[in-house]
């Protein structure tokens, strides 16, 4: 186990971790504070002017200093759309991971602790689910959903649908991680000590075993947020994710992609850079966490 101060010390001595942490912090702040600091609200039709469309970044000839990173085809400032879009991407990423974690931890705990046919059943189910690509399942589900409802309803519920679809499709990763930790933990004598006093299985699982399996859960959570953001971006890029009037980073890249050959490269390039920075920083932090929390890699200190 590692104390918080040791954890902080490790963090501050690792330039990669600090860099990734700062990038992530800036992006999160930018997204959360978007309504306050964005130069423009891209969802407010009153603030948009079609005359401002496809303006290049401010430092280019023809640029406007109101729009630092230029504007898109509807006259929305790319910087503002990125700020709002990052928020939506993060919301979907975190939301999907919460769904994954709740499902995965519950099923993983039950499978690992109960064992027997329940375990076999749940793990075969996980195998089947993992053998189907997440993207494929999401495409089918979202295509059905967008066909079944009209565009307005779809736009209203798109966030929730994306969270649910990505969340449900990826639970086996959590379930497998938790199950393997549970198999290790349940052999330990503190679990027997809890059984000796007659604690019901439910309380042993959630109160004793779960807190000891959270380290790997924390690590995969970080990486899974990055993964979920990428899946959402791919779906949006394919036109199955967020509608263009409430764009995530993926839908911004898609809407800009149409203009890339007419020379308006900024509409797609800047959201793409932000997406890369976001996913990369999450993955780097996840890798760093795994190294720090894995006692096998940690020597000589405790």
């Amino acid at each position: 186990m590692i104390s918080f101060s040791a954890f902080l010390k490790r963090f501050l001595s690792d330039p990669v971790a600090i860099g990734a942490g700062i990038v992530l912090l800036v992006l999160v702040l930018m997204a959360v504070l978007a309504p306050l600091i964005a130069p423009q609200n891209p969802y407010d039709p009153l603030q948009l002017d079609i005359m401002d469309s496809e303006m290049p970044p401010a430092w280019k000839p023809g640029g406007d200093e109101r729009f630092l990173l230029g504007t898109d085809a509807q006259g929305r400032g790319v910087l503002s759309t990125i700020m709002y879009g990052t928020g939506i991407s993060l919301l979907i990423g975190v939301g999907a991971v919460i769904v994954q974690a709740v499902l995965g931890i519950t099923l993983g705990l039950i499978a690992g602790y109960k064992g027997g046919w329940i375990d076999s059943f749940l793990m075969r189910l996980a195998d089947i689910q993992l053998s189907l690509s997440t993207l494929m399942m999401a495409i089918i589900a979202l295509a059905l959903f967008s066909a079944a409802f009209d565009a307005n309803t779809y736009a209203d519920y798109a966030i929730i649908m994306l969270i649910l679809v990505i969340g449900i499709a990826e639970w086996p990763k959590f379930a497998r991680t938790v199950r393997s930790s549970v198999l290790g933990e349940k052999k330990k004598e503190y679990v027997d000590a809890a059984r000796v006093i007659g604690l019901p299985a439910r309380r042993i699982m959630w109160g004793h075993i779960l807190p000891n399996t959270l380290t790997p859960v924390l690590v995969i959570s970080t990486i899974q947020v990055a993964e979920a953001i990428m899946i959402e971006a791919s779906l949006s890029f394919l036109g199955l994710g967020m509608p263009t009037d409430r764009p995530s980073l993926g839908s911004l890249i898609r809407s800009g992609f149409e203009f890339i050959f007419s020379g308006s490269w900024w509409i797609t390039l800047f959201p793409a850079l932000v997406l890369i920075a976001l996913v990369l920083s999450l993955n780097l932090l996840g890798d760093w966490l795994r190294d720090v929390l894995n006692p096998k890699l940690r020597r000589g200190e405790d």
Partner: protein
Amino acid sequence: MTQPIVETRGLEMRFALPTHFLSREKPVLHALNGVDVSIQPGESFCVVGESGCGKTTLGRAIMGLLAPSAGEILFRDQRIDTMDERMRKPIRAEMQMVFQNPYASLNPRRNVFDTLAEPIRHLLPDTPAAEVREQVESVLAATGCDPSWQRRLPHEFSGGQRQRIAIARALVTNPAFIVADEPISALDVSIQAQILNLLTDLQADRGLTYLFITHDLSVVEHFGSRVAVMYLGQVMELAETQAIFAQPKHPYTRLLLEAIPKLEGGSFDKPRTPGELPDPVNLPVGCPFAPRCPLADARCRAERPKLRTLANGTQAACHHTE
């Protein structure tokens, strides 16, 4: 004889071994083969034997961690192995366990107070919070733990300190009977004496009854009032401690006694023939010790000896003891 506090009658434990699902054979491991022990209040009943003899299985079955395949387990004449949880709850407060490995028996994420309060909160839910605190503190004091340890986590303590905390947890509901499964074998030599003394003192203060499981006969000689020597799931010899050390009746007991290294030296000078445990999956028909026994004859290989009482009160399962 007074009423025994814990008794087992014909206890059997069989584990099905994992096999390929198409395999026709269903191998079964016999961990306990008809074990009858009765433990008197206030005594330190020791169970000795080598790995695979079933001593830990016996302790875990009595504590309800394993369900017996056959036989009965009684606590003060009440049958507990088939009792439902609601009925069993008050009995659980009377029976507690101390485990071998103090590094695994305390939940690493719980502080000492929470670990100790849990048995009271679950088994005696009517205890007011103030009294829980009081009880935890008094039991910590009784086991030589500092009251300031309560808010600390297990990894801050040494092995000996952790074992004291584990003993405190076992005592917190004020039990009458404690199963101690190799409680000192994971500890350093200089700490073992501390823990053994603690167990002796606690027994004197609280009138505890111990079922003490160990592989170390020298500890038994010091600590036990009666001893059961087990081999491959069976009791081979059961006697008063003095009797077993003065006059070991079973050849296996004698082998165990000879194997103890002596401080005077000299007993390892003659080479010994390798002895191996028979496969517990395919137990021999006769006496399980026969393959290693110098006295074994045709009868031993054909007929399993029953535990019978000898003239000096010792019970032994051997055809060749008088």
